[in-house]
């Protein structure tokens, strides 16, 4: 198939693909997301291919193998899904493959040991859709991920791809913007600015050239949904951008991707090529007379480049420093032209809204935060990974129902949202609905959707110090409050975590926070106070314990803790004394060991290797 010349031809092509597809054909789907590849999914796929060849199964059983994007449940990778049964197997190894082929593919039976086991009920759940991690999800932005091959445009078209674009090209650009406004779609990158309003402001500025851009510089630590979308369903982003470009009258687009995401760069690049070869990008798209193309720009590992004006400077080939935004980038953005910049997840929602309509989308979520949001549920929670749920779900539901509670039966302490611009929300507020406005009211923010779960062994002062350290590292140095204010805050927080805190330090931190909030040039600095202020607000007792009692209640801050061995629990296996880099653990075989606290460097190796949980921190 070459160029698709019209919307009708696209539909006919889709029908042809559907007629050729065999939905009952047994299909093995091996996840090739970054997580699963690291866990060894490639050898698993090779093992399947080997067995199929060996047994000549292609001819009699007809197994298709597809390599897909991320299923989101990365911790349990490599993941293998089987169609038509709808079974999901976790932590599959090459040596399991023969059994899967024999039992499930040929015999239709479940291999119980590879299926999900509910930790609470010990129940085995083999059906993909019934696993609690997936059961409560509502996937829009992640609609195709894990089900289609991101390197095959036909797979995307078969799944309904480019139908939103075909519909949009038959509409008036103004009506498209109205549809996006009515859907209530807000920017998924952090700020939550209404996408439709942004598009309309762009159109309102007189200019001969406009641009649309995609922000794929996902920098918030703890969030990786954009990576997953760019790797697993690149066409959804491209389609969204073409619709946006048609609506605002842009002919050139840019996708700014972190260079740390090589697979995303590769899959986006090949998807753009494939779209061009089908006439979905380039001149006269689907015979509409509208022309548009996309370039990829790789980021250089600077967090501040996620900020709109810095990102645009970086694309132009400059140092990525932000500017003061008296004039917004939607009016004067890339090359000083009106520019719509939306985040990856925002663009991925657009085609679905075009197909299903604004009313359908607006019916999901809360009054002011419509639709669904992808969260990366990570940290000290049992089920970690990407989840997409309607806005307004409570923190507790996310952590307990989908996340399966805290690891190791520990106590749930807080969640951190919004990356370095966000804050920590304590367990007692976990009935709070997760939407743009509730999180901001609680002193945090949505950010790009990272939800980092913390337990009783997380020190909140250390968390505040961690984020300020991160920001010191990433501050571009252009404005004084950020360049000089952040290192001062880091000094104070470091002193507190090292037991050198003074009673007046909390007030000093609050003053510095105020300075940054009102004085910094861009979002990086103005939101930098959140991690500090939210931890002071909700965990003042921990600051006091560090300052007044020189004690770290969570047992994290190295200067304030000592390691010891519980003589009752120690079996005298000698492993810790062998591994201790200081050689400061002594004791005879089968007798309790002792740590020399003077020489101990608190590296944690003994606690890590102990199989009897006998190492204590106090």
């Amino acid at each position, binding site marked *: 198939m070459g160029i698709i010349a019209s919307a009708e031809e696209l539909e006919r092509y889709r029908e042809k693909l559907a007629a050729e597809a065999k939905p009952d054909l047994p299909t093995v789907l091996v996840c090739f997301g970054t997580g699963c590849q*690291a866990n060894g999914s490639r050898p698993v796929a090779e093992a399947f291919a080997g067995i199929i060849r060996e047994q000549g199964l292609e001819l009699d059983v007809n197994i298709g193998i597809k390599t897909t994007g991320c299923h989101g449940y990365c911790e349990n990778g490599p993941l293998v899904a089987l169609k038509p049964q709808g079974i999901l197997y976790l932590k599959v190894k090459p040596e399991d493959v023969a059994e899967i082929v024999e039992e499930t593919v040929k015999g239709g039976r479940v291999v119980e040991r590879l299926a999900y086991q509910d930790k609470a009920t010990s129940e085995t759940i083999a059906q993909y859709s019934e696993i609690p991690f997936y059961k409560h999800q509502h996937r829009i932005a992640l609609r195709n991920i894990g089900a289609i091959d991101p390197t095959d445009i036909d797979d995307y078209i078969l799944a309904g791809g480019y139908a939103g674009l075909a519909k949009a090209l038959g509409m008036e650009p103004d009506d498209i913007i109205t549809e996006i406004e009515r859907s209530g779609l807000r920017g998924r990158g952090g700020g939550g600015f209404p996408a439709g309003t942004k598009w309309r402001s762009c159109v309102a500025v007189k200019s001969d050239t406009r641009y649309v851009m995609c922000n794929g510089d996902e920098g918030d*630590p*703890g969030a990786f949904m954009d990576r997953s979308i760019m790797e697993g369903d690149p066409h959804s982003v491209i389609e969204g951008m073409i619709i946006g470009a048609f609506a605002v009258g842009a002919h050139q687009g840019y996708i700014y991707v972190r260079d*740390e995401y090589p697979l995303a760069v590769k899959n986006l690049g090949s998807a753009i090529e494939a779209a061009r070869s089908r006439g979905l990008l380039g001149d006269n798209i689907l015979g509409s007379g509208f022309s548009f193309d996309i370039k990829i720009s790789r980021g*250089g590992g600077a*967090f501040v480049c996620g900020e709109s004006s810095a990102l645009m400077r970086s694309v132009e*080939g400059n140092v990525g420093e932000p500017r003061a935004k008296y004039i917004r980038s939607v009016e004067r953005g890339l090359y000083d032209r009106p520019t719509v910049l939306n985040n990856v997840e925002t663009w991925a929602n657009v085609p679905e809204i075009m197909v299903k309509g604004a009313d359908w989308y607006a019916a999901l979520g809360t009054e002011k935060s419509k639709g669904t949001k992808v969260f990366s549920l990570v940290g000290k929670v049992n089920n970690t990974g990407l989840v997409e749920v309607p806005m307004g779900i409570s923190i507790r539901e996310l952590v307990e129902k989908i996340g399966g509670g805290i690891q190791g039966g520990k106590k749930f302490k807080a969640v951190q949202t919004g990356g370095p611009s966000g804050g920590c929300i304590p367990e007692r507020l976990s009935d709070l609905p997760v939407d743009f406005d509730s999180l901001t009211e609680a002193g945090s923010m949505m950010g790009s959707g990272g939800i*980092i779960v913390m337990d009783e062994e997380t020190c909140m002062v250390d968390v505040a110090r961690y984020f300020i350290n991160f920001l010191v590292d990433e501050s571009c140095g252009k404005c004084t409050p950020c360049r000089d204010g952040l290192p001062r805050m880091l000094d104070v927080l470091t002193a507190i975590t090292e037991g050198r805190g003074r009673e007046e330090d909390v007030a000093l931190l609050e003053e510095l926070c105020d300075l940054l909030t009102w004085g910094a040039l861009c979002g990086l600095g103005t939101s930098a106070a959140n991690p500090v202020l939210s931890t002071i607000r909700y965990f003042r007792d921990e600051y006091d314990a560090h300052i007044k009692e020189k004690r770290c209640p969570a047992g994290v801050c190295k200067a304030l803790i000592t390691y010891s061995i519980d003589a009752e629990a120690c079996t005298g296996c000698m492993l810790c004394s062998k591994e201790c880099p200081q050689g400061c653990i002594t004791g005879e075989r089968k007798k309790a060991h002792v740590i020399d606290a003077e020489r101990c460097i608190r590296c944690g*190796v003994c606690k890590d290797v102990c199989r009897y949980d006998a190492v204590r921190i106090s």
Partner: protein
Amino acid sequence: MIEAEKIDSIIDRYERSEECLLAILQDFQREFHYVPEEGMRRLSEVMGVPESKIYAMGTFYKALSLTPRGKHIIKVCTGTACHLKGAPQILETLERELGVKRNGTTADGEFTVECVNCVGACAMAPVTMVDEKYHGQTRPSKVMDIVKKQVEG
């Protein structure tokens, strides 16, 4: 020795547009494990932009290094999830065992230990990357074995 031909062949992959400066510098980094001075000078000449601008970019972007890096790059992810799950202990172990500080290179030029503010694989925290390979759920007691095993093949 950096070959002038290699530098030119990288520059020639791209249009003569300032938009491509960062991509070219990144390709230098990938090819030579750092951005050589000869490369920056040549780029300035070919593109007709001041050397000072290229140098500013070279020092601004974290992905770029102006000094030679080790043969193997070990990246410790210091994203939030990794931090909570023990990234600081992993980093300390590597610093201690290899005798380097963060972002430093061992005296024999074999290893550079870098910190990355999130590699986007949080569900596998804590993550350590050796060259381009991801290792999830790394532990302080095991990280040196992982490095040795991969490097020695």
